C-alpha cells in the first residue's frame, strides 16, 4: 500500500486540493484532515497547506496553532513523522513552536505572487533528501508575510546545524539570510514559503517542485 498523507484543512485554507492532487499524482494516498480531528494514527505524514487559516486574523497562524488538530500534529512530529508546512502552513508551524522564528510581512509591504529562483541549501530534511545541494529550482511564492525572521542565536544554530534547506537566489521579501525554508533539528518538520504543489507539472510552468514532493514520499514507509 502507498503511504498516506493527510492535508490539514483549517477554515480559510485554500491550497488543500492542489497539495492533495500533486501528492496523489506522485503515488501517495491522501486525505483531507479537518482541523477538529484529534486522531491521525492512520497517517504517515501531514502537510499543512497554504491559505489563510482562520482568516489570518491577528497574525497568520496565530489562531490556527490552537486548533485541536495541532496536538496530534505535534505528536506525529515528536514521533519523527514528516510534517510539512507550505506557505501559511509554515507560518502555522512557527506560531506553534514546531519550527523556530517567525514570518514577518514582506519588506516591500506588497503581496507577492510570482515564480522565484531557489537553491537547495541542505539535503538534511525529509523534503530535500533526494535533491542535491546547490540544485536550482523555480517554484512560485504567493504570500504577504513571508519574510523569515529570527534572533541571531537562532540563525546561528540553523546555519550550524544545516537546517536552512532552501534559499532564494534573489531575495523577494526581506527574509533573513535569504531563507525560503527551514527544518527542525531532526529534519522531519519542514516549513517553506514556496509552493511545490504549484510546480508539479510542466503544464503549470514548472515541475521543479516534484523533487521536494518525491523526497517527502521517499521518506515514508511502504505499507505491506
Amino acid at each position: 500500500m502507498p503511504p498516506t498523507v493527510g492535508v490539514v484543512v483549517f477554515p480559510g485554507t485554500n491550497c488543500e486540493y492542489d497539495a492533495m492532487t500533486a501528492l496523489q499524482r506522485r503515488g501517495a494516498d491522501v486525505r483531507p484532515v479537518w482541523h477538529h480531528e484529534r486522531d491521525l494514527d492512520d497517517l504517515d505524514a501531514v502537510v499543512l497547506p497554504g491559505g489563510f487559516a482562520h482568516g489570518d486574523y491577528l497574525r497568520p497562524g496565530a489562531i490556527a496553532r490552537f486548533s485541536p488538530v495541532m496536538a496530534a500534529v505535534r505528536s506525529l512530529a515528536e514521533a519523527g513523522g514528516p510534517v510539512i508546512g507550505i506557505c501559511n502552513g509554515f507560518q502555522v508551524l512557527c506560531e506553534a513552536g514546531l519550527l523556530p522564528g517567525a514570518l514577518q510581512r514582506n519588506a516591500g509591504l506588497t503581496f507577492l505572487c510570482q515564480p522565484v529562483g531557489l537553491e537547495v541549501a541542505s539535503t538534511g530534511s525529509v523534503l530535500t533528501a533526494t535533491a542535491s545541494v546547490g540544485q536550482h529550482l523555480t517554484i512560485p511564492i504567493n504570500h504577504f508575510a513571508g519574510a523569515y525572521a529570527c534572533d541571531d542565536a537562532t540563525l546561528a544554530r540553523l546555519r550550524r546545524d544545516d537546517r536552512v534547506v532552501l534559499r532564494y537566489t534573489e531575495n523577494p521579501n526581506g527574509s533573513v539570510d535569504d531563507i525560503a525554508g527551514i527544518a527542525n533539528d531532526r529534519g522531519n518538520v519542514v516549513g517553506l514559503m514556496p509552493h511545490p504543489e504549484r510546480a508539479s507539472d510542466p503544464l503549470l510552468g514548472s515541475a521543479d517542485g516534484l523533487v521536494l514532493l518525491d523526497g517527502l514520499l521517499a521518506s515514508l514507509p511502504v505499507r505491506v
Partner: protein
Amino acid sequence: MRFDARVEVTLRDGIADPEGATIERALPALGFEGVSHVRAGRSFRLAVDAESEADARAVAQSLADRLLANPVLERATVELVAG
C-alpha cells in the same frame, strides 16, 4: 471587579518595521519635518473580571504574551483602567 485593559503590541527593537518606515518616509511630503523613529503597532482593548488589579494585569499580560503578540517579533505592554 471589572478592569478595562489596553494591550499595545509593538515590534521589538531591531526588528524591521516596513510599515513604520513607509509612514516615516511619507511625512515630509505632507510637510511634517523633524519626525523620526516611527514604529507601527497594534492596540487591543478588553475587559477582565478579576479580584484585584494585579490579577487582572497578570491575566491580560499572559494572554497578550501567548496570543496577541508573537514573542519572536513583538512585545506586549498592558495598561489597566479600573472599570
